[in-house]
């Protein structure tokens, strides 16, 4: 087996430190909520609909109470009180919260216990809805087995959900195991989730609940036709990461791009906001049995992949620690990393192998997500295709779990039908032709690969120690990850973060927290 030296004590040490880093943040998370979290709870209880401007009911309700300075007690408080106050259904209660002439200032009337009691059947129904989707997935996967690992993950992104459905099926027919619909460029900064099936979007197609359903249907058909369970994924990221997580849970998505820090670093979303949102999103993800894909691959697009390789590893430990605190099992943690070293660097292939294998060994029970070269891609599609093939070879040799296929048109446009077909074909070749290469070879004990693996782990440990010393809030402010600096109160969406009142009420979240 092609293993690299790995000092298990150092790994354990990294985990301990990451745990301390996450615990520090967890204290903050447990004392706060956000507009996104509260909207998610409303949605999960079944509230739906938009007003004539297209503003979702959940936004109207939550914004109303936030503006009134009342959201610290949790939107559930007001929904429960509306139910107790005579609302016939949960939807009715939500509408009263949003539109009732009088604001419920929460003074007098039923207390927290009564509210919880009133919500109990709805809380159970909300959980049941998630569980139903999960059970369906599991049953389907028992009937139609997924393809072997590395699983081939491709992206569709026409902007039009109906075209996306065509492309998704085409991709499955050409050999894809996982289909992602890329989101429109602007979506992650929207503080609401668009509604309905959408047919326009720059750089991708909006993530909406209807769109999830449309792709789910197409991909289920493809599973039947191909005799291989095809997985669907999307992004639980941005200002609505928790809402999208819930939508994905009930629409039976299989995976989600979901990272504890991506929004902070790459979308300039406020840290406090992101930390709280990621936690709640992951509570839903955990319950739904969805596999997350973290975004450490992105670090290597802004920072150098050789110099900053260890930042990926440190961040994976932190993402793991956060995920654990949200109840995710290791089998759900698709930690991300990438093949982003300058291809013209001598022995770059060896360095890539070292990192890929190290990550594989450290996170041996995790469905690792392996990302292709992007940054060094140019418009030379022929060269790019070869570059991707070498990436494929590392993927199969080091036994990555989920492999996002490189696209030779990466530097030009979202992939065309032809690009995906050719990527799938080339990958099928490399995976087959080198199927057992990983079992066949060993690395020289003190060679380039081995030394590199040792170095990256050492550096990751050192960085984790620094981050713990400074706290992650400060570390991010100093540019510890991705060469990007963000401040604690800067960035988008900070206004949507609220301290929880002492009588904060969120029975659904509490139920999810009990699960783990």
């Amino acid at each position, binding site marked *: 087996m092609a293993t690299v030296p790995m000092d298990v004590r150092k790994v354990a040490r990294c985990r301990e430190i990451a745990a301390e880093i996450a615990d520090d943040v967890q204290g903050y998370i447990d004392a706060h909520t956000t507009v996104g979290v509260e909207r998610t709870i409303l949605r999960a209880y079944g509230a739906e609909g938009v007003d004539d401007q297209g503003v979702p009911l959940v936004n109207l309700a939550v914004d109303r109470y936030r503006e009134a300075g009342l959201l610290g007690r949790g939107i559930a408080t007001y929904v429960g009180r509306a139910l107790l106050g005579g609302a016939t259904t949960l939807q009715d209660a939500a509408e009263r919260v949003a539109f009732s002439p009088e604001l419920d200032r929460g003074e007098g009337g039923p207390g927290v216990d009564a509210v919880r009691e009133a919500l109990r059947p709805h809380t159970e129904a909300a959980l049941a809805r998630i569980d139903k989707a999960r059970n369906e997935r599991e049953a389907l996967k028992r009937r139609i087995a997924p393809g072997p690992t590395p699983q081939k993950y491709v992206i569709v*992104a*026409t902007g*039009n959900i109906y*075209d996306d459905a065509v*492309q998704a099926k085409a991709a499955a027919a050409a050999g894809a195991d996982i289909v992602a619909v890329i989101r429109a460029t602007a979506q992650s900064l929207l503080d609401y989730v668009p509604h309905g099936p959408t047919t326009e979007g720059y750089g991708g197609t909006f993530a909406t609940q209807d769109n999830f359903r449309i792709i789910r249907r197409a991909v289920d058909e493809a599973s039947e036709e191909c005799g291989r369970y095809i997985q669907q994924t999307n992004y639980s990221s941005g200002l609505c990461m928790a809402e999208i997580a819930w939508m994905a849970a009930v629409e039976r998505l299989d995976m989600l791009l979901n990272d504890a820090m991506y929004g902070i670093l790459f979308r300039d979303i406020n840290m406090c906001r992101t930390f709280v949102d990621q936690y709640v999103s992951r509570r839903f993800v955990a319950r739904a049995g969805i596999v997350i894909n973290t975004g450490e691959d992105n670090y290597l697009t802004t920072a150098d992949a050789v110099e900053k390789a260890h930042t990926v590893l440190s961040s994976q430990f932190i993402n793991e620690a956060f995920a654990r605190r949200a109840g995710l099992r290791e089998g759900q943690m698709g930690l991300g990393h990438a093949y982003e070293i300058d291809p013209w660097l001598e022995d770059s292939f060896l360095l890539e192998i070292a990192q890929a294998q190290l990550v594989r060994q450290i996170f041996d029970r995790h469905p690792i997500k392996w990302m292709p070269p992007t940054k060094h891609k*140019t*418009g*030379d*599609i*022929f060269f790019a295709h070869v570059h991707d093939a070498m990436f494929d070879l590392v993927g199969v040799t080091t036994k990555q779990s989920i492999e996002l296929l490189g696209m030779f*048109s990466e*530097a*030009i*446009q*979202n*992939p*065309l*039908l*032809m690009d995906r077909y050719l990527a799938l074909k080339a990958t099928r070749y490399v995976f087959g032709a080198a199927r057992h290469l990983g079992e066949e070879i060993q690395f020289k004990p003190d060679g380039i690969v081995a030394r590199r693996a040792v170095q990256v782990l050492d550096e990751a440990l050192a960085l984790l120690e620094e981050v713990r010393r400074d706290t992650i809030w400060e570390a991010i402010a100093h540019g510890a990850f991705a060469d990007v600096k963000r401040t604690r109160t800067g960035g988008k969406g900070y206004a949507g973060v609220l301290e929880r009142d002492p009588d904060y009420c969120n029975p659904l979240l509490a139920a999810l927290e009990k699960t783990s």
Partner: protein
Amino acid sequence: MHPTSPAKPLRAYGDREGDGMVQLSFVLQLPPSARAREAAKRFAEAHGIEEPIVATMEAAAEGFAFFVVYGHSKHAVDAASIDVPEVRTEALSREDIEHRIKTRLGRKIVVVGACTGSDAHTVGIDAILNYKGYAGDKGLESYKGFEAYNLGAQVENDQLAARARALKADAILVSQVITQRNCHKENGRALVELLEREGWRKDVIVLFGGPRVDHKLGLELGFDAGFGPGTKPSDVASYLVEQLCSRPASVP
């Protein structure tokens, strides 16, 4: 051919129906420069490619730039109206083939094949004629109903014709793999003309095959059929059976 299907002009399909996306790559004898990039753009536009993106421009050699261009082709083809001759062969099973030859022809089908001219590529004709066959499909030699002569490569047309005549061949199989400056067409046409000059063209089935061959080309050059890449021996056997064993064998 499909008179009912409406004429629907097809554009290239990139990401959505009708977007016309195509990829064009080429070299111009110019060093890379802003001017060369513009030249590449205009070159693409001259082909009817709209909003061309010059995805790359690289120095492929001194004084030569290599380009990859993407853009929206404005052209469309009306596929429904295209009438392409296709070899109409019902794919027969080995048993069927043997059975029909036996019952309807009552003797072996004699075939003589070669790769002609200066072409030395035997793999294609071997695939059709020799026992081993192609992709698991055994060659004509493997059938009881066929008597197959493979003359190999670099056979001149007159030798092939003479041999076929001597063997009273039912069919002559010509393979042409080298296609530089259309030498395969010349070689093929020359054989048919030779048979015509010798006056026995219509007494024999003449088949043309190779990686750049299709049925249409075969017909154009005066052959009875043309076979392209991926042809299996059983396709050829089925075709010959259909041509030669259409009626039950006349009792001798």
